[in-house]
């Protein structure tokens, strides 16, 4: 988004003061702020710091009041990042975190800046990512496997457990108040074809291209942990391979990689063998779930809570997910 709204409290002096207190800048440092993403509640801001006599550095600030947020508290996100890092998942390192009641007046995380590309179309087509494209499916399988091995004892209590993902999806659809016969067909199909359950693990919740920083050498960092939950591990795998996240490509893993590479690497780390046939159910669920989330995003615009052309436009893209769903169910296009 262009010049997304930044909380009034996040000013250059306030950020410089915060960095100084965290030992990341000196009081007369030159600080420049670039808003990367702005939401209704959470802000992501890239900070360039030039302290006299020190090398220039770049860090990332995540900040926002928890009360306005519809996910777990920001400091819990910091704990998740640390748990993921300790498990060997590439994530931005946490440099500092706190409630900062006396300074910014809101919880914050200061994170390492990870350079690289996030735009799926560039990753899929630019020559500089040729090697990354060859490596990515395996790297994604390995990273996800490591995340799924995180002991649930280390997962903060605030991170929700998803019981039945089909029921959760149906509840979300009901919250929109919009009738979608195609999604009802999808939900019935999901009910009728449930695979046997697997033990719940710490999932990322939005594991897909667009939320990954990738360099010429492949995966560098996994971002966007706000949908993290304790749930069936195959939810992450199915979401990653959903037709909704292939960005115009044909290959199942983000339009770039193959099932075998992803699932073999995942099995090598976890010992859990997931088959392509087993994944199909989770891909169908992913298409319905993304469609429902798009309706909810449009509702945010229509109810005036967040007026945005980007959110408004998503509503008319819901039929893309309905179409993908009908194609999958008719078997015309096997995932």
């Amino acid at each position, binding site marked *: 988004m262009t010049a997304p709204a930044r909380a009034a409290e996040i000013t250059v002096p306030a950020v410089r003061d915060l960095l100084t207190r965290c030992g990341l800048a000196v009081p007369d440092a030159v600080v420049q702020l670039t808003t990367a993403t702005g939401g209704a509640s959470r802000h992501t801001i890239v900070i360039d710091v030039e302290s006299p006599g020190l090398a220039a550095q770049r860090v990332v600030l995540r900040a926002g009041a928890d009360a306005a947020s519809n996910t777990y508290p920001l400091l819990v996100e910091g704990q998740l990042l640390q748990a993921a890092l300790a498990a060997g998942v590439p994530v931005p390192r946490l440099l500092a975190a706190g409630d900062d009641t006396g300074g910014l007046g809101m919880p914050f995380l200061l994170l390492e800046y990870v350079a690289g590309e*996030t735009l799926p179309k560039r990753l899929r087509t630019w020559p500089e990512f040729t090697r990354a494209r060859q490596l990515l499916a395996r790297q994604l399988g390995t990273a996800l496997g490591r995340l799924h091995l995180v002991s649930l004892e280390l997962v903060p209590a605030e991170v929700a457990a998803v019981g039945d993902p089909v029921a959760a999806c149906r509840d979300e659809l009901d919250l929109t108040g919009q009738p979608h016969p195609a999604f009802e067909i999808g*939900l019935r199909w999901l009910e009728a074809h449930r695979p046997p359950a697997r033990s719940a693990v710490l999932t990322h919740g939005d594991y897909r291209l667009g939320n990954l920083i990738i360099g010429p050498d492949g995966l560098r960092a996994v971002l966007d942990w706000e949908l993290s939950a304790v749930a069936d591990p195959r939810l992450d795998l199915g979401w990653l391979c959903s037709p909704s996240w292939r960005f115009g490509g044909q290959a199942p893993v983000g339009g770039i990689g193959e099932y075998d590479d992803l699932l073999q690497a995942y099995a090598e780390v976890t010992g859990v063998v997931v088959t392509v046939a087993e994944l199909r159910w989770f891909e169908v669920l992913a298409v319905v779930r993304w469609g429902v989330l798009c309706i909810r995003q449009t509702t945010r615009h229509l109810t005036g809570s967040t007026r945005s052309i980007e959110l408004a436009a998503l509503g008319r893209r819901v039929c893309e997910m309905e179409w993908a769903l009908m194609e999958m169910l008719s078997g015309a296009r096997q995932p």
Partner: protein
Amino acid sequence: MTGTAPSPPPRSPAPPHDVPAAADLVAAVAEFLGERVLPAVDSELRYLVRVSINGLGVVERELTAGDGPALRHAARLRELGCANDAELAARIRDGTIDAADPQVLKSVRAAVRDKLAIADPRMLPGPGAAGRMPDSSHDRPARSG
């Protein structure tokens, strides 16, 4: 300044309005955004301008399609014995309409196809279209973490 792209024949305005018809007016706005605004803005704003142009394209196609899609949809619902989509959705959920019935699938599929023909016709298989799968984020601006 005027655009140089060949224009489709103008559409008839809905009475009592004058030319341009609503669809042509919307197309003119989209053209302006594409030819003058898009090249003049930074990369972040460019993404939102593209989203805006796409949105106007949806409106133009919906206006041009007239009442054909609505009439076809009413006929489909009648065949299934439902007053509207809300009733159809509720009856699929409670099982009084079988979600696996080929006629139901065919009907719902046709409705989705009609929506998609307006929202993003490039996604439909057929002449001139690859039948591509959804591309859920278009060209979002880069982020950093």
